């Protein structure tokens, strides 16, 4: 038996495989395919204070080894969440994390306060990196001062574990990781999508209604991995790696580079069982290589190079 667990402060995760916000619905979409409770955690679809309709169709385009999305945080708002989703989702025997989003700092604060009262939610992921909304989102995550301020304010009202999700669309992601660490974040997760675009050459117009959208999938893995490696070498809090993870081998790249855990995103669209397969693959790898605890390989490449 190998120990796959890791912790953010005193919050324990039974294994390092989480699912990424916006790619795993509220878990139930996957009940027919996997036992969601086997996962280390699930991060729910991005939630806002008020209901949001998101962007116009078309919101999606396929790209080489990836996809663009411009969903734009469509969700039914926190009231609906509390009433209809929370009671259901807490039946999973895993850490359920709410991904919170806003247009103004006040939105983030109000949301964090609301989630703070949901006793079974022990962590939030502060999304300051959504590229698909006109206001808020990435605007916070690409400005150091705003990142600092929103983290500080949310920290002051939220007593659970605070994971800040970083934007890759910046010159130096390490600066952002350091700033949110200073302001009391318990963990950072990265990366959110890269801002991208595609054109329908036959129709001579942009593929997405919003012209630009967020790029995810294997295409972004090398960039994500580089950023995770940089950040893991710069902060002390646990780093959660995200970006193009399709297989256990992909996940292990992140872990070897310094990630304490990973999130499976777009992969769940291609194979709804990928998260569990990745979990099993990580375990096999550790057994094969003769390790008994995942922490023995976390950041392994940094010890030897």
């Amino acid at each position: 038996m190998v120990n796959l667990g890791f912790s953010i402060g005193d919050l324990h995760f039974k294994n390092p495989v989480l699912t990424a916000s916006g790619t795993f619905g509220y878990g139930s979409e996957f009940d027919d395919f996997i036992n969601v409770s086997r996962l280390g955690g699930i991060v729910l679809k991005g939630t806002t204070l008020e209901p949001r309709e998101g962007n116009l169709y078309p919101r999606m385009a396929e790209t080489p080894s990836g996809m663009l999305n411009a969903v734009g945080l469509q969700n039914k708002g926190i009231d609906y969440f509390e009433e209809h989703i929370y009671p259901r989702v807490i039946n999973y025997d895993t850490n359920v994390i709410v991904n919170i989003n806003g247009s103004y700092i006040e939105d983030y604060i109000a949301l964090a306060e609301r989630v703070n009262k949901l006793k079974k939610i022990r962590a939030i992921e502060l999304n300051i990196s959504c590229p698909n909304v006109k206001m808020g989102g990435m605007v916070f995550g690409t400005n150091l001062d705003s990142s600092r301020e929103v983290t500080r304010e949310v920290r002051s009202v939220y007593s659970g574990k605070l994971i800040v999700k970083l934007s890759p669309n910046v010159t130096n992601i390490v600066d952002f990781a350091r700033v949110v660490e200073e302001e009391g974040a318990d963990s950072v997760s990265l990366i959110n999508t890269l801002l991208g675009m595609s054109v329908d050459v036959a129709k001579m117009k942009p593929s997405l209604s919003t012209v630009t959208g967020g790029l995810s999938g294997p295409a972004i893995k090398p960039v994500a991995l580089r950023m995770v490696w940089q950040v893991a070498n710069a902060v002390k809090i646990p780093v959660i790696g995200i970006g193009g993870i399709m297989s256990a081998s992909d996940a292990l790249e992140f872990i070897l580079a310094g990630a304490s855990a990973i999130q499976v995103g777009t992969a769940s669209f291609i194979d709804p069982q990928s998260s569990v397969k990745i979990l099993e693959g990580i375990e096999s790898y550790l057994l094969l290589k003769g390790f008994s605890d995942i922490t023995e390989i976390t950041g392994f490449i940094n010890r030897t190079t």
Partner: protein
Amino acid sequence: MAKRIDDLKVIGNKRLNNDFFILELFAGTNIADFKPGQFAQVRIDGSKETFLRRPVSIHDVDYENNTFKILIQIVGKGTKMLSGLAEGDLLNIIYPLGNWFTLPEKTEKVLLVGGGCGIAPLLFLARYFKFNGFIPDILLGFRNNARIIEFEEYSKIGNVFITTEDGSVGEKGYVTSHSVFSTQKYDRICCCGPETMMKALAAYSKNRNIICEVSLENLMACGIGACLCCIVDTVKGNICTCTDGPVFNVNDLKW
């Protein structure tokens, strides 16, 4: 109705014409309970450019032999790949997905209308209606002779009417201009095809208080309600084509 993910064996690949082919898949003895209008998400292997699955309708189901069929039009890289599958190959597939056409509650005269690859779900739908006591009329539209697919199976179920844009078979023109609309009075129209066609039928139906259901072909990433990419703007707001659809009553659409 639980969704499944399976590697199903291809037991036939029949080329209908230049653009269309039918894959027959063996579903195993515990074959799923399919409803007409539902679809599947098939995985495309073997191309660097096809990252996502491709949605395809359930074309026909044979509960006796535990097989089902999908009818595919070659339009791009993914469908091209699928056309190369041979007997014995495995196809990774998530199914059955989405909602289905509703069955009339009382006696109704039903017309099924399909254009292009939109004819795909209609065979199973026709069978299902007939099985439940409604013998539908079936109106199929094709670009021209070369695009026609065999409609023998449909003829066994109900009256079949054909249009081609060049008049090479059946009446000339679009399905929407077929004479059947002036000679017959329908209570219900079920439709799948190009958006312009469906919109025309929706307008026609609304004006006459005919029940009209259409099957939408929105771009999909997941097919299971997880990504919110496939939305359609309805009177209930943005909802998912893959879970709340693909079949919609036109009164719910903002057409």
